[in-house]
């Protein structure tokens, strides 16, 4: 468990990048003409320093905490060994939470990518008002995930929610419902909101990718007599691959770790029935910090596995000649 905590960074062979522990400063001692001799240090040193200081150090603290016995008020009572993990794995909710997390991630990322591909294609076209409508597209992003989720919680309110009112008026439901109170209806809404807030970033990533495809390539395809679908499949999609990969990987990580959507709308409840591993971790936090830390470590292991599996499946480093 503890292997992926601290040693990832500087202690392993990064010959030209000796651990620049201090932030900012020391990396750029001499630059200019001697750049070549200094190697990568002045270039990537600051980045490594920032990562070590703010990301890896807390990881280490976190992993350490998972082996400690800490009271609710924060006093360290001594080492707990593997007890936290033993207790965690004995928790009857853990299994269903993990399954829910995998389904949640796959469904949300899948829908997000499909819808974003279509949206990017549409907003790449030229039409009157393209700029204004593109702005509208970033609304969920600009308004923040938290606010959007709170907004949907309000709109799904049992008595005054506008979505309930609308669905009743349209005859879709008989009467206002407590959508978020029942896991069976809460999950689809949570996923809907998660897709909704993931669309702006994904669509913009794909739009940026589309913009690197020169118009002349399409022209050449047209001259060669390729239809729109063929052009899309044989030219656009392969050229979009880098952008799509970025989009999928970032979304996998974000959606897996997605906290505000579920926290703002259901708090993972009732009980842990709408919790993903991250929310579950937060629920544990109020009872037992050590166990919550253990859950974080498990959580991280799951993300790593998920991303590695995806990279493997997508044949990440083969550029697909």
């Amino acid at each position, binding site marked *: 468990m503890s292997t992926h905590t601290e040693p*990832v960074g500087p202690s392993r062979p*990064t010959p030209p*990048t000796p651990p620049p522990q201090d932030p900012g400063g020391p990396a750029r001692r001499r630059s200019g003409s001697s*750049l070549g001799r200094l190697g*990568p240090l*002045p*270039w*990537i040193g*600051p*980045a490594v320093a*920032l*990562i070590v200081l*703010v*990301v890896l150090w*807390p*990881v280490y*603290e976190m992993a350490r*905490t998972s082996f400690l016995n800490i009271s609710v008020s924060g006093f360290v009572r001594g080492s707990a060994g593997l007890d936290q993990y033993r207790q965690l794995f004995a928790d009857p909710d853990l299994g269903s939470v993990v399954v829910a997390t995998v389904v949640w991630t796959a469904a949300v990322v899948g829908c997000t990518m499909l819808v974003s591909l279509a949206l990017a294609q*549409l907003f790449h*076209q030229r*039409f*009157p*008002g393209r*700029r204004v409508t593109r*702005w*509208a597209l970033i*609304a*969920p992003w600009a*308004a*923040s995930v*938290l*606010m959007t989720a709170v*907004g*949907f919680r309000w709109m799904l309110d049992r*008595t005054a*929610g*506008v979505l309930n009112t609308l669905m009743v008026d349209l005859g879709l439901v008989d009467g206002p419902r407590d959508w978020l109170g029942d896991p069976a209806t809460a999950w689809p809404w949570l996923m809907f909101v998660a897709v909704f807030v993931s669309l702006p970033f994904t669509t913009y990533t794909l739009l*940026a990718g589309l*913009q690197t*495809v*020169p*118009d*002349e*390539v*399409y022209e*050449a395809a047209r001259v060669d007599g390729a239809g729109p679908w063929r052009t899309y499949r044989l030219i656009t999609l392969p050229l979009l691959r*880098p952008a799509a990969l*970025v989009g999928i990987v*970032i979304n996998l*990580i*974000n959606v897996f770790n997605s*906290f*505000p959507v579920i926290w703002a709308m259901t708090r993972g409840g009732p009980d842990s029935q709408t919790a993903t591993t*991250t929310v579950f971790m937060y629920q544990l*936090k109020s009872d037992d*910090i050590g166990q*919550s830390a253990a859950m974080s470590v498990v959580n*991280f292991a799951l993300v790593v596995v998920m991303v590695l599996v995806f990279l493997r499946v997508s044949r990440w*480093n083969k*550029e697909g000649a």
Partner: protein
Amino acid sequence: MMSAPTTTTPGRRPAAARPEPATARRPAGRRPAAGNRPAPRTVVFAVLAWLLAIVFLLPYVEMVITALRPAGELRDATYLPGQFVWSNFVEVWRDSNLGHNLRVSLLVAGGSTLLVLLVALPAAYYTARMRFRGRTLFLLLVLVTQMFQPTSLLVGLYRQFYQLDMLNSVWTLILCNAAFNLAFAVWILTAYISSVPVQLEEAAMIDGLGRFGAMFRVTLPLAMPGVVTAVIFTFIAAWNEFVMGLTLSTVPESQPLTVGINSFIGNYSVQWNYLFAASVIAIVPVVVLFAFIERHVVSGLTAGSVK
């Protein structure tokens, strides 16, 4: 293990394809399918896009409507309130710390965006252009960083900055937001920079620009969409960041907007109208930023294709 993020080895397709036809083919600057005649498909696209835009905005319209509802009408199942109470905005601004929160959020978002660019650009440039020992390890480190989210590190972060006595500081939030957004910036910038053909840069260096001249005058302008993407992503992520602000800033004066807004939940049950009035205020700067920067996306792109 894995070599580089997206597009790696210099001179693969998207890049190589760009400048070549631009010079080789005749209708260089002109875009096909543009023109002034409104083709039927253009109309369809426009209608679709406008409909979608409205759908995307409706939830926020509802938030604005709620922000204007009188407290007495909050529980009514009506689409519009009987009257709009604009004083909700005034009251929420007067009776809360939103001014402080706004300042903190602007400093944190602006500061961390700047820091990310300062740190990520050189790293991305070097990684895209050079093969060096530890390159794979560096990219792996970046990827691993991306997998960590502040949410899952809260306990560790709090304990660390508590030990450093850096709680309630804007600098802490700047550092943290920069660090957690660095991975994406390095990643996207590496992809864009390596999609600029090395030959262009070499040509510029032969013409006497030097490495830095080539970097700033040739490569960066061509990679501009990537830079803009990184800026937008970092700024908005920092602007919307919630959990770190909540954990690392404990006094209202040093809390960012998201945390300030969140305090409307719970203080007195949920004051939905004030909650959304504060949210609307919080959205404005991001919308302004995007409206401003979208221009640069467009101009950066056209500048790139002319070159």
